[in-house]
């Protein structure tokens, strides 16, 4: 009996240790990113690489974020404007995506209409087409309607949310039909049913979808890179990418720009992770 407990205790130590170790290794790059960003210039170009700053310095953030006057000329990496641009673009994209896909998902799940099943099959089939096939012609099409270098051009492709529609549909199927039928018998219109019965039940799904969409739009890199040519309009990943290409040797500055890009996203994720995880896990797993 004592051996049994001892073995269980050992196992617990080993397993927890393994998990802790894996987590530590996973988080090391992110932690190092933050630490290096506070090091003075060129301090990290040493072997062995320093892990802890000898001297904490805000100079990298200052250089990155603040417009500096140097010999009568303003120099600016335009990172803060890019941050606002990203916020704006991601926010609008999320709101629009929700408006478009949540009602559609519900319709495919619960409403009877001609061609529903055929349309559904078409949607599932088109999941196989990689998005990049459409990229080049879509650029040409944007050019024809004059949407190159505009935010509408950046947001538009992300609104084709096939995956989101199917995701909402899957979640809506769990709602019992009787509830909807009962509301219909009570004389409620379809819109009212959607607003008062369905939407509250879909709240967790909506939050998950919102977080997904916001993160995807924030981190989107390739399409904004192609569509936006004006550096005043750059979103954060594009702005940072163009800095990186030129300043590959300035490790500390690069880490600072990486921190600025990652921090908002991590903050949102940590704040809403319960919903996000629930959405992904489908509510089947408890802590």
């Amino acid at each position, binding site marked *: 009996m004592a051996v049994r407990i001892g073995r269980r205790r050992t196992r617990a130590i080993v397993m927890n240790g393994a998990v802790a170790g894996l987590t530590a290794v996973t988080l090391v790059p992110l932690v190092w990113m933050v630490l290096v960003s506070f090091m003075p210039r060129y301090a990290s170009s040493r072997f062995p690489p320093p892990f802890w700053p000898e001297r904490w310095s805000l100079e990298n953030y200052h250089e990155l974020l603040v417009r500096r006057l140097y*010999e*009568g*000329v*303003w*120099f600016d990496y335009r990172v803060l*404007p890019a941050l*606002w*641009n990203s916020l704006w*673009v991601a926010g*609008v994209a999320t*709101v*629009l995506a929700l*408006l*478009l896909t949540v*009602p559609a998902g519900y319709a495919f799940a619960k409403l009877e209409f001609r061609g529903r099943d055929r349309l559904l099959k078409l949607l599932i089939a088109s999941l196989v087409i990689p998005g990049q096939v459409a990229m080049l012609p879509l*650029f*040409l099409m*944007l*050019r024809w309607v*004059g*949407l*190159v*270098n*505009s*935010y*509408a051009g950046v*947001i538009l492709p992300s609104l084709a949310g096939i995956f989101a529609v199917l995701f909402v549909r899957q979640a809506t199927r769990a709602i019992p039909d009787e509830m909807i039928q009962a509301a219909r018998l009570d004389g409620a219109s379809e819109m009212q049913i959607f607003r008062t019965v369905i939407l509250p039940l879909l709240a967790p799904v909506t939050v998950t979808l919102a977080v997904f969409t916001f993160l995807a739009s924030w981190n989107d890199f390739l399409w904004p890179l*192609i*569509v936006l*040519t*004006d*550096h*005043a*309009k750059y979103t954060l990943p594009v702005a940072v990418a*163009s800095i990186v*290409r*030129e300043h590959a040797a300035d490790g500390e500055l690069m880490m600072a720009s990486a921190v600025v890009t990652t921090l908002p996203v991590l903050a949102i994720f940590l704040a809403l992770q319960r919903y996000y995880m629930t959405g992904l896990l489908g509510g089947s797993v408890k802590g």
Partner: protein
Amino acid sequence: MLGMIPAAMLAAACSPRRDPNALVLWAMSYQGDYSPYLTTRFTADTGIPVEVQSIPWTAAHEKLLTAHAGGVLPDVLMLPNSWISEFQMIGAIAAVPSPTLVSGLFPGLVEGSRISGRDYAVPWSVAPLVQYYRRDILEDAGYATPPVTWDGWRTMAARIKRRRPDDHVFLALVNYEGWLFTMLAQNGAYPLRERDTRGNFRTPEAREAFAYYASLFRDGYAPLASSTEIQDPLAAFAAGQFAIWEGGATWLLDMRRRAAELPPERWGAARVAGPRGPGPTSAKDVSLSVSTTSHRPAEAWALVRHLTSSESELRFATMISTLPARVDAWDGLDIPPRVLQPFREQAHDLAVSPMVVGWERIQIEVQLIAERIVRGLMTIDEGLAEADRRADRILAKRRSLVESGRIA
């Protein structure tokens, strides 16, 4: 609720406010980073604000093309001379309105980028190549200055190699096309034929150039290394791993900054060696153009005039070591005469590069073939045939358009 959608989309189409009065200038790399120094003077003189955007070279071609596709090219843009004909063909750049903008420049520059008798860009800097050499290593082998003939180079290289068997003589990276194309230009091997629609690499002149290039590697004078293996050429040059480096004027900037590693007395500059004496070198000269979609062409050309004035070009020379395209500006350069002399002579002897779409791709492909040749994976004749094949393929569209008379 659904009515919010069009409203939201309208909001999305709006963009952050920017100064509508500002002229927009796009330039690459150093020119892009340091142009604000030049434009503040312009703004002070004329009251027109200028917004400068710096683009990395690696993304420049796509950024310019997508901007043109979207009709959002800047008022003034910097272009390497080899891209001028391409951008003129797609209607992106406007003709130079006044001949005074292109007067007083090095002769080869303007003629080289004229299209159908008209100019579409104003040369901004000239970039001749010279050979930088390590004085001490050459003196040790009995040379006060490096030879300027191909045979002379080989003789010197043999002597240096005998004394320093572990080092190399020429820093010619196998993924850098400058050396080979300079040799082609010097030997009079114009790389394209039939109105620039086919490759012309199977001529005796081209073969001689390729053979000479390959011989440098075969005899161990040049290393079988690319820029990923030698990431800091200046450090290698300073350490004596190489005696000769063929480069442009921007190296002067690095050498000034790192004078501690490589003191000025230890290096010198001379004309690049040619088959029978110095000849033309390939170059990466750049120019400024005004886009056809600019709303304020008069002001844009005024900005171009300001940026290509002697004072502006001299200021750039001090800050980023680009050589002015204006001949009279050279009198004010702060470079020791013995170093400036080879640059000056070479600037009067510029190679004529084909001005066709796809020329850059052809250069990249041919250099890849050259790398295979020097690594012994291909013979020279096989390589030349393959170079012609690839050039023909890249120029196929041009060929069909020329044959059907749609292009002059």
